């Protein structure tokens, strides 16, 4: 599975694999406009794992769809910002050019493998479709490749199972099939949208390990979208915490777990159940995530923040630099950092 060198766009080693800058996405519904992503910025280097962490509705999946170019439009629109793959502007590309990147250079693993696999086709055909669509391979050759891949994602007796249908696989095996499809052409970037959410806890660990191993083998950039802090701690290099369509904190994984610099991250970390606090009530962040059609004034997190002051309701904090590789969108980040030292 060599990469076709001609297909890789130019870009020096200094150019990040993927650079998202000030991305804004909104959904124009009949009676209102929902601003799902508001100025998300990040970059991804080769071999790096970036975790995007956030509650449901924080805009993490939508930003991934925008990068893949599979946003349902209408109603979804990218209103501002740029997405660059190896320095090349993806939003300005012809649709056909983007389609060729999808699956080949930038790929995606979906949350629910059962509903993401077509129920009426054998899995071998579905994995093989990658080779047929992108490399124009014959059906027979593509099935051989599919069996190799299924072996590679450690599905036992792969040769026989290429003839099975998705419903004949267990949840974990199905997710392996999904991963095999996404990684078939050794893409540069894989976006995994909550890849383990639909799985049992024990299987979750195996799937994450598999993804991580394959990432190392192929030195891909991995964007891991999740709400599971446990998963993130194990595999991510960097973390972006999203809230109401904004990045509220960005940091290396060690820093964020040791000393969060935003009250939301602080709250998330405190609400992880801990074995040494048995018998005590679980800590939670009060309130619910904001309605994106009606985002609070000032700092979007202030209605739920235990450190909120008057200014928080009025002025939205900028994403301020805390240190070399970390940023926080809080007026009082030094205070948060101090409290968690």
């Amino acid at each position: 599975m060599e990469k076709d060198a001609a297909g890789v766009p130019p870009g020096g080693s200094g150019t990040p694999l993927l650079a998202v800058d000030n991305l804004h996405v909104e959904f124009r519904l009949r009676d209102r406009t929902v601003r799902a992503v508001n100025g998300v910025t990040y970059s991804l280097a080769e071999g790096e794992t970036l975790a995007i962490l956030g509650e449901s509705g924080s805009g993490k999946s939508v930003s991934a769809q925008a990068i893949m170019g599979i946003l349902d439009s209408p109603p979804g629109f990218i209103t501002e910002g740029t997405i660059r793959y190896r320095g090349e502007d993806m939003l300005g590309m012809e649709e056909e050019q983007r389609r060729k990147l999808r699956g080949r250079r930038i790929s995606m693993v979906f949350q629910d493998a059962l509903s993401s696999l077509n129920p009426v086709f054998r899995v071998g055909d579905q994995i093989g479709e990658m080779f047929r669509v992108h490399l124009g391979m014959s059906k027979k050759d593509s099935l051989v490749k599919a069996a190799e891949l299924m072996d590679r994602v450690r599905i036992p007796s792969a040769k026989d199972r290429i003839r099975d249908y998705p419903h004949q696989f267990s949840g974990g095996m199905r997710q392996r099939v999904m991963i095999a499809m996404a990684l078939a052409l050794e893409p540069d970037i894989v976006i995994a949208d909550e890849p383990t959410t639909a799985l049992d806890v024990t299987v979750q660990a195996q799937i994450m390990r598999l993804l991580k191993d394959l990432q190392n083998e192929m030195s891909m950039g991995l964007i891991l979208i999740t709400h599971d802090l446990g998963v993130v701690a194990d595999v991510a290099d960097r973390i972006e915490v999203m809230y109401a369509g904004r990045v509220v904190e960005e940091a290396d994984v060690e820093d964020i777990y040791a000393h969060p610099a935003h009250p939301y991250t602080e709250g998330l970390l405190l609400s992880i159940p801990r074995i040494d606090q048995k018998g005590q009530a679980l800590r939670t962040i009060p309130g619910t995530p904001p309605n994106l059609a009606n985002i609070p004034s000032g700092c979007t997190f202030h209605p739920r923040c235990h450190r909120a002051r008057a200014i928080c309701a009025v002025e939205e904090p900028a994403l301020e630099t805390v240190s070399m590789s970390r940023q926080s969108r809080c007026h009082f980040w030094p205070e948060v950092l101090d409290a968690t030292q």
Partner: protein
Amino acid sequence: MTEPFNPPPSDPQTEHDPPRAGGVGGAVTVGMAPDATLLTDASTAPGQTAEQQTSLTKEAWRDLRRNPLFIVAAAVVTLMILVAAFPRLFAGEEPGGATCPLGQSRLPPRAGHIFGNDLQGCDVYAKVIYGARPSIVIGIVVTIVTLFIGIVLGSISGFYGGWVDTILSRFTDVAFGFPFIVGAIVILTAFPQRSVWTVVIVLSALGWAGLVRIMRSSVFSAKSMDYVQAARALGATNSRIIIRHILPNAVTPVIVLATIGVGAIIGSEATLTFLGVGLQAPANSWGLSISQAQRYFIDSPHMLLFPALFLSTTVLAFIVLGDAVRDAFDPKLR
């Protein structure tokens, strides 16, 4: 930072696959080839919609084979298709000319002519057998043509949405609102010479709208499935998404509806012919025989009864067949 969450090396053997179906107690019918391992009892995994979808075809087939109504209807339909294809096997020479001695005009059923003779002295049995072909051909060809139109327009409308859908849907609404019989009479009277194909064209032109509507909504719901988005994210082209991922998952309802419609189309042909705007003599069809026989019904009822019996049996068989297929494929009725 140490890893608080260090998974064991992946060991796929620890993941439990559902038993390869076939071994599930009583879930699988007998007499299937090894390929029957594909069959899974949906009840072993409640709530797994895709599983139900995949095995739906097979389960439907299993249900159908146990349904006596289906067996009888399928047998009648098969017989009628054979009659239409090889009338010579059932009735010998085609009636007409020398085989119709005028001296035997309107003679009642008797040995050698079990259905009697018609006005021209032709054997009614032979006429009924040879009259099956236009009815069956019209029923099947019109169904295929309307199914094709329905699938193509419905898919385009449902997949692309937006202004394409708006235009196609309004167009469909107009066609749908056209009263069927009146429309057919108006168009058919405009043709001085009418053959089987004229009737096929007119019935097709008036019959596709309902199928487009069903197909459109079916594609709409298939389009929003995750596997369609997944296919798009992995770089499939639009045509590939429609043909491979949407169509196979959206086509069942229209096929079922079209099956039910075959009987109605055969009935429409007979109706139009009876009204004098369908097939014309010297052609031979059930509708035509009924039309010619009506004036002599009191004196020679056999001339009308036998074609009418064949017509109603065939229409009924197609409708029962369609109903049985619909019931077998509708998850809500199981």
